[in-house]
């Protein structure tokens, strides 16, 4: 596939995003563009502002200003519960599987916001581990299965932009491999994905571009095909 990124339309445009938790100023002017159908990662050390960037998109930080436009619509100032209804699905870092809900109830919880979401059989095909577990309490699944469930429930909703916050955190390599396969399949299906990742080896196998964040801004953008030339720089950024 030719790299048509430049001709594709921008789906998400973040300009000079500032975010605050109470008194502390966490994001200092973040600029990010995500085009339709891309997989983009946010890399950076702990506390660089990756998760806050995602939470700002969803409107769940204390205060934010600047501009976040999704398919041309400004998200800053929009009522929190309306943002996901535009077609943005959020998979939080802590996975957010509800312990008082069964696996099925967790899967069916997020309301459908657009037509064209995946059906439950398609979801089971993508994550066979979830099949037949419907009545299990959500939090009794293994960590990897909970991660799959957290992704799966968003796929049903018809959201076309998916925010994945550290999907591989704390998981065994074999499960990380499975999640990677799933994310690649989602990309083939045309989902646009923003991924926060500490594990940049994982990120390199699925992403088109990488934004590097440090102390609340984006300090660099590296296309995946230029990753090899930029390894030294990246090691300095990430301190690995």
């Amino acid at each position, binding site marked *: 596939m030719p790299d048509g990124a430049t001709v594709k339309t921008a789906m998400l445009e973040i300009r000079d995003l500032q975010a605050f938790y109470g008194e502390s100023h966490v994001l200092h002017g973040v600029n990010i563009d995500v085009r339709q159908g891309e997989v983009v990662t946010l890399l950076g050390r702990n506390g660089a502002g990756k998760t806050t960037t995602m939470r700002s998109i969803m409107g769940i930080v204390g205060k934010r200003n600047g501009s976040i436009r999704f398919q041309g619509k400004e998200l800053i100032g929009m009522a929190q519960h309306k943002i996901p209804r535009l077609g943005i699905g959020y998979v939080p870092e802590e996975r957010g599987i509800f312990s008082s809900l069964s696996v099925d109830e967790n899967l069916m*919880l997020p309301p459908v916001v657009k037509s064209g979401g995946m059906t439950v059989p398609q979801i089971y095909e993508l994550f066979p581990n979830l099949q037949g577990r419907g009545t299990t309490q959500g939090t009794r699944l293994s960590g990897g299965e909970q991660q799959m469930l957290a992704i799966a429930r968003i796929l049903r909703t018809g959201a076309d932009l998916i925010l994945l916050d550290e999907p591989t955190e704390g998981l065994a390599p074999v499960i990380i491999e499975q999640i990677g396969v799933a994310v690649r399949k989602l990309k083939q299906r045309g989902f646009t994905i923003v991924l926060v990742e500490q594990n940049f080896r994982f990120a390199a196998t699925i992403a088109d571009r990488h934004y590097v964040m440090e102390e609340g801004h984006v300090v660099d953008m590296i296309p995946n095909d230029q990753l090899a030339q930029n390894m030294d720089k990246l090691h300095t950024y990430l301190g690995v």
Partner: protein
Amino acid sequence: MFDLLGVPPQVLFGQLLLGLINGSFYALLSLGLAVIFGMLNVINFAHGALYMIGAFVAWLLLTKLGLGYWWALGLSPLIVGLLGVVLEKTMLSRLYKLDHLYGLLLTFGLALIMEGAFRHFYGVSGQPYPIPDALKGGQNLGFMFLPNYRGWVVVASLVVCFGTWFAIERTRLGAYLRAATENPVLVQAFGINVPVMITATYGFGVALAGLAGVLAAPIYQVSPLMGSNLIIVVFAVVVIGGMGSILGAIVTGLGLGLLEGLTKVFYPEASNIVVFVVMAIVLLIKPAGLFGRER
């Protein structure tokens, strides 16, 4: 007639029925408290006062507008529920970011104001409310006499309690509620308007108190103090059942009503404190309550 444990069966079953009636009110009221606590994390001290207002609305509908019991059964919970929605929107919702204690203080203050206002206008002597014609009379069950109205209260309360339990534990709307109780921010991030759900939950919880008030009106008199007489026991029920546990509130409410009835038969002196003794024991052994989950 045979005796059971040295007690005539009429006495035993009579007290058990009384216990079951009280238990029905405990269950309805503690259910509302549990629903509200689960979602809002507020201990609704105004619950007893809203129960009292439910009974007064029924009485006012009858004496001012000539609308009878069956109208009151529908209208009174609706009116109390709307009052709850107004209280939540205008006052309670401003306190969620503060310590839970502020919600408790606010609702306690509201309860005092509501009770004071009704005392001012209607005194404390209590107003009679007639049993509806359709439920007058009673059944002779052989071992005891069951007044129809009391049977109706038990059945109505059980139906409402288990209907609520089913709606919360087994339906999609209930799944939203349970999820929002656990992690409201994430549920909001799925596109559900959580503040509206919170308001509706408070309205529903206090509507249950209003319903209990209507059911109580023909049994107890309609008096400004009827709520505060009952509410302390109801709080004990909620603590024993486990804060926020729906099934716990229902089962504990009925169970403790029966236990109180039994205590009246076998050791009447203890009947007023038995609930609190149980509460102390439960708190020692299982601090989260019989049906509560440790948080």
